[in-house]
C-alpha cells in the first residue's frame, strides 16, 4: 500500500460523489453525495499525514476532525433546508424546484 493507492481511492470516492450530486434528483441523495465528496477530502488529509515526514505533529487528524465537526453542522443545516423545502413544495425533487426561472 503506497500513498498512491489512497489517493486513487479518494479520487474515485470524490468522482462518485460528484456524479451523484450531478445526476440524482432527490435532494437528500444529493446531500449524501456531497458528504461522500467531503469524506474523500478527509481521506486525502489522513493519507498525506500518514505518509508525511513527521506524522507526530498530528496536523492531518486535527484537520479531519474539524472537517467532520463542520460537516456535521452543515448536514444539520442542509437537512433543515430540505425539510423547509419539502414543507413549501411538498416534494424534494430538485427538478421540480424551478421557481428561479420565473
Amino acid at each position, binding site marked *: 500500500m503506497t500513498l498512491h493507492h489512497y489517493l486513487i481511492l479518494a479520487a474515485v470516492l470524490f468522482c462518485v460523489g460528484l456524479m451523484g*450530486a450531478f445526476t440524482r434528483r432527490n435532494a437528500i441523495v444529493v446531500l449524501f453525495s456531497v458528504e461522500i465528496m467531503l469524506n474523500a477530502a478527509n481521506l486525502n488529509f489522513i493519507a498525506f499525514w500518514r505518509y508525511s515526514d513527521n506524522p507526530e505533529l498530528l496536523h492531518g487528524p486535527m484537520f479531519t476532525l474539524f472537517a467532520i465537526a463542520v460537516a456535521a453542522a452543515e448536514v444539520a443545516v442542509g437537512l433543515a433546508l430540505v425539510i423547509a423545502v419539502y414543507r413549501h413544495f411538498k416534494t424534494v425533487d430538485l427538478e421540480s*424546484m*424551478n*421557481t428561479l*426561472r420565473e
Partner: protein
Amino acid sequence: MTTTTLALIPLLPLLAAALTCGLQNGRRAAGVAIAAMLGSCGLALAAFNEAWGMAAGAHKTFNFEWLTVGDTAIPLGFVLDPLNGAMLAMVTFIGLLIFIYSAGYMKDDERMARFFCYLSLFAAGMLGLVLANSLLLLFMCWEIVGVASYLLISFWFHKPEAAAAGKKAFIVTRIGDMGFLIGILLAFKTTGTLTLYDGGQGLLETLPSGMVWGMQASGLISLLLFMGAIGKSGQLPLHVWLPDAMEGPTPVSALIHAATMVAAGVFLVARAIPLFEAGDTLPVVAWVGAITALVAAFIALGQYDLKRILAYSTVSQLGLMMVGLGVAGVSVGMFHLLTHAFFKALLFLGAGSIIHGCHEEQDIRKMGGLAKPMPVTTIAYLCGTLALVAFPFTSGFFSKDEILAGAWATNQPVFWIAAAASLLTAVYMTRQCMYVFPGTHRGAHTPHESPRIMTVPLVILALFALGLGGLAKDSVLAKLPGEAAQHETIVIVVSIAVALGGIALGWLIYRGRALGQAADPLAVTPLVRKLWFDELYAATVGRLWSLAIIIAEQLNELLLRVRDLAVLLADRTGNAFAIGGDRKLIDTLAFDGMCNRLRSAGHAVTRPQNGFLPGYLRLIALGAVALGVLVFWIK
C-alpha cells in the same frame, strides 16, 4: 470628593430627567425630580464644604480620558475650587427650592411630568457646566442648558408668543455661541489643549501666546468667549431674548432666567478670567456690563408686565456683575451673582405667587391692593425688593457696594453709569410695588394667598436675601481670586444715596396717583417700546435677511434663464447633427445593430439560467475544474 461623587452631582438630575420623560403622573415625576435634586444638593454641599476649606486660589482637578481618536486623546474632567463650589451650592439649593415650588405651581398642568423632565435636564446641564474642567465639556453642557431653556420657555407652545419666544431665545443665544465655539477652536489651535487646569499644562495655566489675525491670541480668545457670555447672560446687544423668555412658566423664569442659566455667562467670564487678564480685555467686559445695566434699567421703567420688569432688572443686574468682574475681579462679580441669585429667585417666585393669586394676571395695572389678601407673599416680595435696590444692610447692598467701590478705584465713568443704573433700579422697583401692593384691587377676580408649598420656599429665600450678604461677604471675598477695593467715603455715600433717593423718587412720583387709570408719567413711548431694539433688529437684520432673499430669488431667476438657454442650444445642436445623415448611421447601423447583437447575446447568456438546480451544480463544478487547471497552468 472623587471623580464619581462629583460626577453624580450632574448625573442625578440627568437620571431623573431620563426617568421622568416616560412618566405620565405629574406628582410622581415631581417626587423623582425633587429626590434627585435633594441628593445632588447634598453632594454639592459636601463639595462646597471641601472647596471652601481650600486655600484661596487652590483647586483640585479630576481629569479622565473621554475618547481616543487615532493618537489624539480627548480628556474631559471636573474641577473643584471655591469659585464653582459656591456656584454648585447656590445652583442646587435654589434649584431645589424652585423644584419644590414648581410642584405647587404646576399641579394643574396636564404636562407636569414633562415639565419636571425638562427642569431636571436643565439642572444636569447647569451643574455639568459649573463643574467642567474642559472648555469642550463646558460647551456641551452650555448647549444642553440652551436646549433645556428653549424647551422650557416654549413649554406652553400652544401660545404663539411662547413658541416664538423659545425660538428667539434659542437663535439669539446661538449667535453668541458661535463666537464661543470659534473661541474654543482658536484656543485649541494656539495651545493644543482645552483642559482648563491640568497640573501646569492647562489652558488657563499656560495661556495662549502669539498673535492671531493681528491681535494678541489670549485677547481675541477671551473676547470670543465673552461673546458667548453676552448671548447667554443677556448683555447688550443680545439681551432681546431674555424679556421675551418670560412667556415660560414662572418657576422657569426664576430658575433659568434669573438665578442660574443667565449667570452661566458671568460664570464663564469668571472661570476664564486669566485669559481676560492676559489679553487685557477686562475693560471691554466692564463697559459692556455698564451700558447694559443702564439701558436695561431705563427700559424697565416703562414696562407694565410684572415679570417683564423683573426680566429687564435681571439684564441690568447681570450687567452690574460684568462690571464687577471687569473692574475688581472674580470675587466681587461672583459675590453679586450669588446674592442676586437668591433675591432674584425670590422676586420671581413671589411674582409667580402674585400671578397665581390674581388668576394668571400679569399686568400690574390690573393688580393693586394685594398686601391684605397675600401677606406672606407681600412681605417676602418686599424683602426681595429691598435687596435688589441695595437698601442698606440687605445682601444686595453689600455686593453692589463692592462693585461700586471697585469701579471708583479703576474706572470712574463706569462708576457713574453703574450708580445711575442703581438709582433707576430703585425707581422702577418702587413703581412696581406701588402698583401691586397698596390701594384697592383693580382686577376682575378676588386675589388669594398661595398654598404653603409655594410660600415656604419664598420665606426661606427671603431670609437669604436679607442675611446672606452680610454673613458671606468676608469669606467670599477672601476665598475667591481678585481683590476688593478700598471703600472711599464717596462710594458709600453715593451707594446709599441712590438706593434711598430712588425709593423716595419713586414714591414721590406715584404717591396719590390713580394708578391703572391715569397715564403713567414714566411709561413714555420709547420705554414702553423697549427703546425699539426689536424694531431695530427687524429693520436691520430682518431687512438684510429680506434683501438676501430677494437677491437669492433673482439669482435663481437668472439661473433658470441660463438653464433654458443651455437647453435650447443643446436642442439646436442635436437637431443639426440628426439632420446631417446621422439618423441612418447611428440609428440603423450602430444603434439597431448593437441592440440586436446585445439581444442575441442576452439570449445566449440566459439559456443556462433555466432554474434546473443540478445544472447549476454542474456549472459550478466546471468552473472549479477550470480554476484548478488555470492555477496549475499558471504555476
